[in-house]
C-alpha cells in the first residue's frame, strides 16, 4: 500500500489537474482501448479505487490504468498501450465496424484501425478511412445478402428436386431388386433346363454309342461305321460351343473376381471382341512400347537397384546432372527434364508420366476402361472443353452403362416382361425328358440362358451402382444430391483441375492425369469435401484435396491451391451452401454497420 500511495502522491503533484478532472467524470481517454462491453469492469476503478486484473493475479489502481507499464500479465491494466504483450486494444472505427487489435499494434507506426486510434503517439499520422472502408464493406455485405437470398431460393428448389430424384432412384432400385429376384429364378430355371438337356443329350450320345458299338459288333459294315462317326461329330457340336463360351469368360476374367459389375463387363467384352479386337490392340501395343521406350533414360536407375554405386556412373553427363539434382527436387529424372527445360515438352515424357500416374489402376482391365469406364467418357468431354476456365458437365455413369449395354432403361419396362414371356415359351416348348432331344430347341434354351444371365449381370451392375449412389451422404437435406455424377473444372496455368463430387478429383496436364484424391467424405459440417488417397507423391504423402464449399448461384470450382506439398485445396461455389440462417446473421452485421455514427471525431 505504501508503494501505491507514493505513486499516487507523485502523480498528484505532476498532474493534479488531470486527476481532478478524471475524478469527476470518466472521459473516453481514460478508457482508451476498452471495449464497450468491458467498460463496466473498469468503472470499479472510479468507485473503489482499485480493481483486480481479470486473471485475478493482483490489484491495480486507476493511476495504473494505461500508465504504459504492465502490471497485469493478462494486460487488464493496459488496454490502451503496448506495455502488456497479451493486451487487446479496441478501436471504435465509427462509420465502419469496430475492431479489437493486439496491443503490439499500438503506436507501432502502422495504421491498423481505420479511425487511426491505435496511432495516438504522435509519430505517425493516420487518416480516418472508416467511412470509405465502411461503405465498401457495407456494399459488399449487401451484395452478399442478395446473393444468399437468391441462393436460398435455388437451394430450396434443389432440395425439392433432390427429394424427387432420390425417391425415384430408390423406387427404381427396389423395382430392380424385385426384377433381379425374378430374373435370377428364370436364369436358374433355364440353367437347370439347359443342364437337363445336356444330360439328356449326353445320355442319348452314350446310348447311341452303345448302340453303335452293338451295331458295329453285329454288322461290322464299313458303311455303317462311317455313318455313326458322322453322327457323333454333330452331337458333339453343342457341348463344344458351350465350352468355348465358358472359356472366353474365364479368359477375360482371370482373377476370378465375383464382382457382378466386372462380370457384366467381361461378358460384354466377349460379345464384342471379334469386332473390336483389331482396333484395341494396336494402341495398347503402342502404349506398352512407348512406356518401355520412355523409361529408357532410367536405365541408370534400373542399374541402381543392383548397384547404386555403379548406376550413376554409367549415365551420360547430362543424365548424371539430372539424376543428382533429382535427389533434392524429389522428381524422376524425366520429370526433372520436363521441369528444367520448360520450352521442351516432349511427348515421351508425358507418356511416361501418364503411365506412371496410372499405375494405380488395374492394368489388366485397362482395355475395358478404355471402352466402358466413365473415366474415358469424361476425358473426351474434357478435351473439347479445354479452353474453358471453369466448367461443368454430367457424366452419369448409369445412363452410359445402360446405353452401352443396349438395354432399355426403366422408361420402357416392357423388356423385362418380354424376357419373362420368351423364357416361359422356351421352357414350355422344350422338354428335356423327351428323347431324342430336339436340337434346335436345345440351342434355343442355350441362347435364352445366355441372354438372360447376361441381362441378370447388367441388372446386378445397375443395382450395385444405384445402391452405391444411394449409400452416399448427400447432406442433411440431400442438398448435394444433384452433384452426383457431375464434374467441375477449373483451368489454372497449364493444369486443368477437375472435381467430381462423390467420385474423385484430378489434375490434368496435356495427356497426363494425376488423381488428387478419391471421394472420402464431407468435413466441417458439410463445408468441405474431402478427397483422399490420390496418386502417391514422390517422397511424400498420397495426394489429397479439400474442396471448401461456398454459397454461390452457379457451381464453379476456383482458387485451386497446393498449400502443402501434394495437399491441395480448392473452393466450389454451390447454392447448397446458401443457408437461410446465414441471411439473418449478415443482416444483423449490416445493421451494426449502419448503426455506427457516421462521423466520430473524438481524438
Amino acid at each position: 500500500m505504501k508503494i501505491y500511495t507514493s505513486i499516487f502522491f507523485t502523480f498528484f503533484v505532476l498532474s493534479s489537474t488531470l486527476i481532478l478532472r478524471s475524478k469527476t467524470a470518466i472521459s473516453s481517454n481514460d478508457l482508451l482501448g476498452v471495449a464497450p462491453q468491458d467498460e463496466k469492469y473498469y468503472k470499479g476503478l472510479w468507485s473503489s479505487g482499485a480493481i483486480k486484473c481479470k486473471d485475478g493475479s493482483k490489484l491495480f489502481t486507476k493511476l495504473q490504468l494505461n500508465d504504459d507499464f504492465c502490471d497485469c500479465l493478462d494486460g487488464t491494466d493496459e488496454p490502451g498501450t503496448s506495455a502488456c504483450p497479451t493486451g487487446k486494444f479496441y478501436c471504435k472505427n465509427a462509420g465502419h465496424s469496430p475492431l479489437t487489435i493486439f496491443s503490439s499494434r499500438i503506436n507501432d507506426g502502422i495504421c491498423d484501425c481505420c479511425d487511426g486510434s491505435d496511432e495516438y503517439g504522435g509519430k505517425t499520422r493516420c487518416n480516418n478511412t472508416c467511412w470509405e472502408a465502411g461503405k465498401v464493406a457495407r456494399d459488399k455485405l449487401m451484395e452478399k445478402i442478395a446473393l444468399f437470398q437468391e441462393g436460398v431460393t435455388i437451394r430450396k428448389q434443389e432440395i425439392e428436386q433432390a427429394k424427387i430424384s432420390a425417391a425415384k432412384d430408390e423406387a427404381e432400385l427396389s423395382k430392380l431388386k424385385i426384377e433381379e429376384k425374378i430374373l435370377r429364378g428364370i436364369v436358374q430355371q433355364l440353367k437347370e433346363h439347359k443342364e437337363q438337356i445336356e444330360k439328356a443329350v449326353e445320355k442319348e450320345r452314350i446310348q447311341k454309342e452303345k448302340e453303335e458299338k452293338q451295331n458295329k459288333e453285329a454288322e461290322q459294315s464299313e458303311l455303317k461305321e462311317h455313318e455313326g462317326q458322322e453322327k457323333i461329330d454333330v452331337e458333339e457340336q453343342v457341348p463344344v460351343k458351350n465350352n468355348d463360351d465358358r472359356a472366353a469368360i474365364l479368359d477375360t476374367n482371370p482373377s476370378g473376381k465375383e464382382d457382378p459389375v466386372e462380370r457384366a463387363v467381361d461378358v460384354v467384352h466377349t460379345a464384342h471382341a471379334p469386332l473390336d479386337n483389331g482396333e484395341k490392340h494396336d494402341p495398347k501395343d503402342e502404349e506398352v512400347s512407348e512406356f518401355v521406350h520412355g523409361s529408357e533414360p532410367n536405365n541408370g536407375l534400373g542399374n541402381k537397384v543392383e548397384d547404386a554405386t555403379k548406376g550413376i556412373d554409367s549415365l551420360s553427363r547430362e543424365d548424371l546432372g539430372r539424376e543428382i539434382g533429382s535427389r533434392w527436387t524429389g522428381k524422376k529424372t524425366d520429370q526433372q527434364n520436363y521441369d528444367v527445360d520448360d520450352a521442351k515438352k516432349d511427348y515421351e515424357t508425358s507418356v511416361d508420366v501418364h503411365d506412371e500416374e496410372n499405375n494405380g489402376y488395374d492394368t489388366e482391365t485397362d482395355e475395358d476402361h478404355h471402352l466402358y469406364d466413365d473415366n474415358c467418357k469424361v476425358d473426351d468431354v474434357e478435351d473439347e472443353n479445354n479452353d474453358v476456365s471453369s466448367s461443368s458437365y454430367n457424366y452419369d455413369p448409369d445412363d452410359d452403362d445402360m446405353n452401352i449395354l443396349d438395354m432399355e432403361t426403366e422408361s420402357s419396362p416392357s423388356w423385362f416382361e418380354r424376357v419373362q414371356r420368351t423364357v416361359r415359351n422356351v421352357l414350355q416348348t422344350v422338354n428335356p425328358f423327351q428323347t431324342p432331344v430336339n436340337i434346335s430347341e436345345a440351342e434355343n434354351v442355350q441362347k435364352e440362358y445366355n441372354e438372360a444371365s447376361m441381362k441378370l449381370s447388367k441388372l446386378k451392375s445397375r443395382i450395385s451402382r444405384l445402391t452405391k449412389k444411394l449409400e452416399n451422404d448427400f447432406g442433411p437435406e440431400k442438398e448435394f444430391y444433384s452433384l452426383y455424377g457431375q464434374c467441375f473444372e477449373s483451368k489454372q496455368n497449364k493444369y486443368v483441375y477437375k472435381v467430381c463430387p462423390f467420385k474423385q478429383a484430378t489434375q490434368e496436364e496435356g495427356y497426363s492425369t494425376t488423381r488428387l484424391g478419391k471421394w472420402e467424405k464431407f468435413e466441417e459440417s458439410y463445408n468441405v469435401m474431402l478427397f483422399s488417397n490420390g496418386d502417391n507423391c514422390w517422397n511424400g504423402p498420397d495426394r489429397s484435396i479439400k474442396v471448401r464449399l461456398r454459397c454461390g448461384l452457379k457451381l464453379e470450382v476456383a482458387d485451386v491451391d497446393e498449400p502443402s506439398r501434394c495437399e491441395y485445396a480448392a473452393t466450389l461455389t454451390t447454392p447448397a451452401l446458401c443457408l437461410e440462417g446465414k441471411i439473418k446473421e449478415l443482416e444483423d452485421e449490416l445493421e451494426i454497420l449502419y448503426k455506427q455514427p457516421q462521423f466520430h471525431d473524438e481524438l
Partner: protein
Amino acid sequence: MKLKLKLKLIVVLLFSISHLISVSSWKKEEFRSCNETPFCKRARSRTPHHSNLIASDVTIRDGDLTAKLITPTPIDGNHNSSSNSSSDSSSPPLILSLSVYQGGILRMKIDEDPSHNPPKKRFQVPDVILPDFEISKKIWLQRYSTDAGSGSSSFVVYLSDGYEAVVSNDPFEVFVRERGGGGRRVLSFNSHGLFDFEKLRKKEEGEEWEERFRSHTDSRPFGPQSISFDVSFHGADFVYGIPEHATSLALKPTKGPGIESEPYRLFNLDVFEYLAESPFGLYGSIPFMLSHGSAHGTSGFFWLNAAEMQIDVLGSGWDDAGEDANQEKRKRIDTVWMSEAGIVDAFFFIGPEPKDVVKQYASVTGTSAMPQLFATGYHQCRWNYRDEEDVKNVDAKFDQHDIPYDVLWLDIEHTDGKRYFTWDRALFPNPEEMQKDLASRGRRMVTIVDPHIKRDDKYHIHKEASENGYYVKDASGDKDYDGWCWPGSSSYIDMVNPEIRSWWADKFAYTEYVGSTPSLYIWNDMNEPSVFNGPEVTMPRDAIHYGNIEHRELHNAYGYYFHMATSEGLLKREGGKDRPFVLSRAIFPGTQRYGTVWTGDNTAEWEQLRVSVPMILTLGITGITFSGADVGGFFGNPDTELLVRWYQVAAYLPFFRGHAHHDTKRREPWLFGEHNTELMRDAIRVRYTFLPYFYTLFREANVTGVPVARPLWMEFPHDEATFNNDEAFMVGNGLLVQGVYTQHAKEVTVCLPRDHTWYDLKTGTAYKGGRAQKMEVTDADIPVFQRSGTIIPRKDRFRRSTVQMENDPYTLVIAVDSSGGAEGEVYIDDGKSYEFQKGGYIHRRFIFSDGKLISVNLNVASSSSSSQGTSFYSDCTIERIILLGYSSSSKPPKSARIEPTNRVADIELGPLQIRSGVRSAVLTIRKPNVRVSDDWTIKLL
C-alpha cells in the same frame, strides 16, 4: 499377357527405385575417402621422422626471419629415400619466412624458391588477409638470438612479451614457447618430422598423373603438388574448430591406437542428407584449429590454403614413442595437416585466453560484419513460397497470430526457369508491389541468387558472361566449363577475377535487377560450387580460373568470392550506405566480413538439432559468428515436439531461420494447434526481447571477433567440466542456454560453471554453479540462466518486427554477484547504415555496485564532440529494472532515487518475464524512465 506382365514388372521396378532413392541418405561411395585420394593416402601412410630437411642460410630480411630448407647430401651418395621424390638431394630448396605481428601472431610461409624457376607459380589465396594486418600490424624483426643445442642450433625471435618463436635447423622444426623460465612449448611444427612438400616438376617417363574417381578423370597437368605436416598443441586437453563438419565441438581423434576414422576433410561439397556425426567435409572450410587445456590455456593454428585439405587429430599413443616422456608431462595433442596444393601460409596464435585466440585470428581474417538489426530477428523461409498470394497469406498469418518476424524468403522457384535476377511472372507478376507491401509493415524479403548460370542465349546474364569470357573454363583452358545444376546446362561465373566481381556486383542495381527494391536482400546457395554432374557433385579440379589458377588450388574459396561479389553488389546499389545482408552456404576464412551462413541441408531429426549447436559454436570460434541451422530441419517432417524444441534452442543462436524442403508438409508456427502455436510464438518472442542484447553482442563481435554464441570454455576457461560440453552454450557472457535434445524429456541435467550463481530466467531461482543441476522441463521452454555479475538489456514489448520496436523502452536485468556487483552493456545505432563507423551510435556500460547503478558512455567519438563524427540519439527510456540476487539482503529496498533529476521510482515485486502463465516475483524498479542515451545514476533506497 506377357506384355502386360512386363509392364507391371516395370511399374513395380520403378516404384521400388523411387522408394530406394527416398530412403537412402548420404551416399558415402560417391565421395572420395582418404584412401581414394592419392595425396591423402600418401601423407597418411608416412611415419614420424619422414622429413630430413634442414634449415640453412638463416637470416633476417625485410623484417622477416628467412631460411632455406634443404635436403642434406647423403653421406654415402646413395639416394636412401627414393620413394619420396620431394627429398631428392638434387631438388631445389624451399624458402621459409617467419613474420611476427602484433598481438602474439607468428606467420610462417614455405614455398618453392622462385629463383629455381618452378614450372608454375603455386597459388596463394589473395583477398582473405586484411590489408591492414599486413601493413600496420607487422613487427619488423631486427635480430635473432641462437640457442646451441646438441647437434642442432636454434634461431630465436621475439614474438610477444611472453612468447618467442624458434626455428631449429636440424632436424628442421618451428615452435612457439614461453619466454624465460622453463620455456614451455605452446605450438610446434614438424616436431614429428611429417613435413612433406611435393615440388612441382616435369613428368617422368611413363609416369601417370591422371587421377580417376568413378566416371570422372582429373587430368592433373601439373602432377603431385601436395603438402603435409604435423602441428602439436602443447598443454591442450582438446582441440576445436576446422569447420564445417557435423560433429562434436571437441574434435575426436581420427587416428591412433584403436581408432579407425577418416580424417576431418575440408572440401566444400553439397552433401545430400548429411549425417549428424561424421568427419566428412560439408559446405565450408576453415582450416583454423584451436586448442584449449587447463595447462596452457588456448592456442590456435591457421593454414591459409584453399585446396582440398584433410586433417588428422591423433589419439594419444599414435606414435608409441616415449621421446616426449622426459620432456614434458603435460598433455599434448598432435595433428597432421594435408593439402593437395598451394603453399604453406600458416599462422600461430599464442592465446593464452580463448578470447585472445579468436581476436588474434580476427585480426588476420577480419571480424564479422555488423548486421542490420532486421537480420537478427526471425526469418521465415520455405522451398518455396509459391506466388504472391502465398507470400501475402503467410505474412498475414504471422500478424493474425501475433508472431513477430522480419524477413520472408523466396527460394529458386520464384525465378523464370532458374535464371537468377528474373521472376516467374506468372507467379510473381508484381514483385515490387509485393516487397513494398511487406516493407509497409517493416518486413524485408530475400531472394536466392546462385552462381550457376543457365546456358541460354536469351538470358542476359549468360549472354554478357559468355561474351566477356566471365566463366570458369574447362581443363582445356579456353572453353567455358559446362556443368549441370538447377537450370540444367550451366556455367559458373569466375569470381576470382576482381573485374568480374565488379560486373557481378553491378547486376544488383535496381535498374539491372528488375523487380528488386531496397528491402530486398540476397541468398547465395550452391556456391561450393554444386555441380550435379561433376566429380563429388562439384567442379572438376582441373577446371581453369582467371590467372591460370587450377580449380583444385582455390576450390574451397570459390563460394567465398561469390559471396564477396554479391555482398559488394548490395553495398553498391545503395551507394555504400546500406549494410548488405547475404546468406551463403559455402564458407571460407573471411566469410564473416561478407555476411551470414547456415549449416546447409540438415534433416528433421533430434540428433540434427543436437549437432546444430556444436556446428554453430565451431563456426563462431573460427570467426563466423552469424550462423544458424534451418529450424525444424530441411529434409523430412519434424514431429511437433521436435519443431517446438528447435525453435526454443534456435531462438538463442545467432541466425534464426525456419526453412523446409518442398516435399515436406507446411510447418509455419500456426499449423500445429493453438497450444503449439503459443509455444513457438513464445520462443520467437523471447528472441525478440533479447534483441538489444544480441545486437550489442553482434557489435562486440564486429569490434573484437568474439562470437555471439560461445562455448562454455570460452567464458570459463578454467572450469574443466566445461571443456567438452556442447549441449549448453553461452550467449555473450551473461546467458547460459541448455538445449533439450530428446523426445518426451521431463528433466535435463545442466552443468552450471563453477564460481558463479545462476538465475533461472523463468522463475528467478538462484542456482550455485559447479555441479550438475537436474532441472525439470516442460514443453514451454528450455532452461536458460543469467550469470551473476551481469546486466542484460531487453525490450519486453512485442511487435510485428524489429522496425516497430525501435522506440520501445528497455528493461535491464541485473544479476548481482557475491560482492553485490554487476556489469553489462548496450549498443544501439540506426540498425542499417554505416554511420556507426563515424561515431553515430550509443554505447553504454551499466555498472552496478553498492546499491547504485550508473550508466557510463563508451562512445569515445560522441563524448569528444569532434566535428567529423556523427551522432546517434535515441528517445528510448528504461521502463523497468529487475534486480536478481538482491533480495538475499536482509532489508529489500523500497524505492530508488534517480540522479540527476532527483526523482524517486518505486520498487515492487514483479515478474521476471512478461509472459502469462509464468509466475515469478522479483524486485523491480518501476518506471525509472531514464533515457538510455543519457548519463544517470540510480540509487537504491
